[in-house]
């Protein structure tokens, strides 16, 4: 009996040792996955905007006596007007494209809407699918013989389509225009080439539609703060497994996260992201798809706050690197903010290559406590800008192209805080000139924050 028990124990021990040896020699699973649930969770900072909320007009100008009222991003009436205009376009071209109206040249203009970037229209688009493929650059609403007409223009100033509107279709928009006109508003005029030349000399070409105030404009100087970014959430949007990203704490307080292939540099004000490995690639998306991708990318990586307008989408080729670039700018009550760097993304079919984000928010203060600046006239500002351009230019160009001319804010450093300083913004031959509105002193690129 005892011997049998010994035999059983011995056999069991031999069997166990064989099993353990096998386990030790061949191991278990070669490498276990290390991911945690929370690393791969889907991060939604903000739902992407629908296509019709990606491109907003640069300017909506309504006709008033002796000039225009203008409406831009960040103003309450601007959003309401754009909503009504969108509705009007969709209802006017819902079923068919009417024939040419043969309107006379001098038909009174009720409203003009300038789109930049242009808005894709046509069969594949959610907006005006009835129209042939194209891009909408401007929309005019004109009145003639007690009826109203809507006209759509391409970038080449060609009429894409026009349609007569019923009184009921235009009623709500007309009512809104009247309501907006009742607010205390400055009168603007469209800059004409002759007026520009008279102010700043011959050789200046006006390359765009610039509305300029015809009376004194008073703007306040405001404190500004950079947007608050949730760093951990942001990291999760850029790195599939952010626990594999290492950090480098720079001496200026910036922190870099990198996994060796892509890098994210976070500063107190914003961030920059690069993924150079994706640079070589194609960008075969249509402009409409690129606009949607831009909207999705900015919504995903930090969000798309109110007042931030998409101002430029370009397609570029550099060697074997083909990409789209989209650029946004923050607005405050119709005035754009100019900071040290734009908020810009570069992407191609392979993904996001570069993203720099620098968004400042104006801290509203009571008007009676604000430091006010009375803007110098546009003629004086334009002349100063042209003089500065000529002074700084290494070679005097034969022609000066005025590419932008508007009021805005420059983000500059004060003693203890950052300020949005009211400026004249003038773009000549792709060179930006920012002049403090009251004394026309220049803010140089290095002054911007």
């Amino acid at each position, binding site marked *: 009996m005892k011997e049998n028990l010994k035999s059983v124990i011995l056999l069991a*021990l031999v069997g166990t040792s064989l099993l353990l040896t096998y386990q*030790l020699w061949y191991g278990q699973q070669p490498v*276990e996955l*290390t991911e945690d649930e929370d690393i791969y969770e889907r991060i939604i900072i903000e739902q992407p905007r629908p296509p019709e909320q990606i491109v907003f007009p640069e300017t909506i100008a309504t006709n008033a006596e002796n000039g225009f009222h203008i409406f831009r991003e960040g103003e309450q009436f601007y959003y309401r007007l754009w909503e009504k205009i969108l509705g009007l376009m969709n209802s006017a071209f819902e079923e068919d494209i009417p024939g040419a109206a043969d309107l006379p040249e001098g038909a009174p203009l009720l409203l003009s809407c300038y789109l930049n970037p242009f808005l894709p229209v046509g069969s594949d688009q959610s907006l005006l699918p009835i129209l042939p493929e194209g891009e909408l650059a401007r929309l005019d609403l004109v009145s003639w013989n007690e009826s109203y007409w809507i006209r759509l223009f391409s970038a080449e100033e060609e009429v894409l389509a026009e349609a007569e509107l019923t009184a009921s279709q235009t009623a709500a928009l007309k009512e809104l225009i009247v309501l907006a006109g009742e607010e205390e508003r400055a009168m603007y005029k469209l800059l004409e080439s002759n007026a520009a030349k008279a102010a700043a000399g011959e050789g200046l070409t006006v390359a765009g539609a610039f509305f300029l105030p015809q009376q004194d404009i008073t703007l306040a100087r405001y404190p500004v703060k950079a947007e608050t970014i949730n760093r951990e959430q942001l990291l999760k949007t850029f790195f599939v497994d952010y626990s594999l990203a290492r950090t*480098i704490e*720079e001496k200026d307080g910036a922190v870099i996260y990198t996994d060796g292939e892509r890098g994210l*540099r976070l500063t107190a004000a914003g961030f920059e992201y690069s993924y150079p490995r994706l640079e070589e690639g194609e960008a075969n998306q249509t402009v409409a798809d690129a606009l949607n991708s831009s909207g999705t990318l900015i919504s995903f990586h930090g969000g798309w706050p109110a007042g931030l307008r998409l101002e430029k989408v370009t397609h570029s080729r550099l060697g074997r690197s083909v990409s789209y670039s989209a650029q946004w700018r923050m607005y405050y009550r119709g005035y754009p903010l100019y900071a040290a760097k734009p908020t810009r993304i570069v992407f191609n079919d392979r993904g996001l290559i570069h993203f720099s984000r620098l968004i400042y928010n104006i801290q509203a203060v009571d008007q009676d406590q604000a430091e006010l600046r009375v803007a110098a006239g546009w003629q004086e500002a334009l002349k100063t800008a042209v003089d500065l351009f000529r002074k700084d230019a290494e070679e005097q160009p034969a022609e000066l192209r005025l590419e932008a001319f508007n009021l805005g804010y420059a983000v500059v450093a004060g003693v203890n805080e950052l300020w949005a300083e009211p400026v004249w913004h003038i773009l000549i031959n792709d060179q930006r000139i920012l002049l403090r509105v009251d004394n026309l002193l220049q803010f140089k690129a290095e002054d911007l924050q």
Partner: protein
Amino acid sequence: MNLGRAKLILIIAFAALNLFLGYHLFWPDFGRLTRVAVSAEELRLTEQMLAENNYSLEAPINRAVQSIDFLSVSQSLAVQRSVLLHFLREGASINQAEDGNYYYIEGETAVIHASGLITILYNPPVVIGENLYGMESREIRNAVDAFLAEKQLNFDGLNFDYLEKEEASTIVVYYNQIVNEAPVFSGQLNVIIINDRIQSVDLYWLEPVERIPIREIRVISAAEALSNLVYELGPAPEPQMITKVELGYYSGDYDAEKWEIPPVWRILINGQHYYINAFTGNKEQEIVIPEQLQ
């Protein structure tokens, strides 16, 4: 022999064997180190893949499963201070230049760069032996070790890495830094010898900084690192020998407050080192810093 007694002896022997095996497999700490990341079959397949691409594995590889955290470091101010003190005690004259601060004493110049790199130049060069170029590595290393001890440059964690004999009787002796029992390939001390004379010492020393919270992540196996590297390099036109596969830490050097260094598999192929990130499996290259791309 009595059969019953023989059975008893065998029971004791197998029980001991099972205890030993069980200890290695299931003991919480030790077992974790000895769990196998590369099975025998995997190793065979890796060797086969290497051979198909004209590489042969001539080095032992660590088959254990390993978990490790990033290593958080800063420039070693203690080492900078120690070098500086030596120069200041000798009454060094100082010159501030664009590429760094220069400290001069008789026969020695120290250059302290903003990146933390320290270069000590010897003029005249210091003789440490005769016909070093023809000597065995061990003898050269002994002579250099003695020199470093004499100059008080044998810092804690100094670890001989390898040496290279170059043209014109030039020998470069490479040391790295051991932190938390692992080599840090970015922390270096290099000694340059020409014609038996030490010309200069390059020193880039790091200070470990406590990382909170500690989060250990399992590293990829050596076999996976080898596969990734061969995939990156492609098939070799000539036969290549893989002579060393070791786990350590590696990154570029930065003029920063502090930074984290990832674990890497350092693979030596025909005298050239390659670094494979042991977390991501990517070949380590120049780090991507957005500002530098502007």
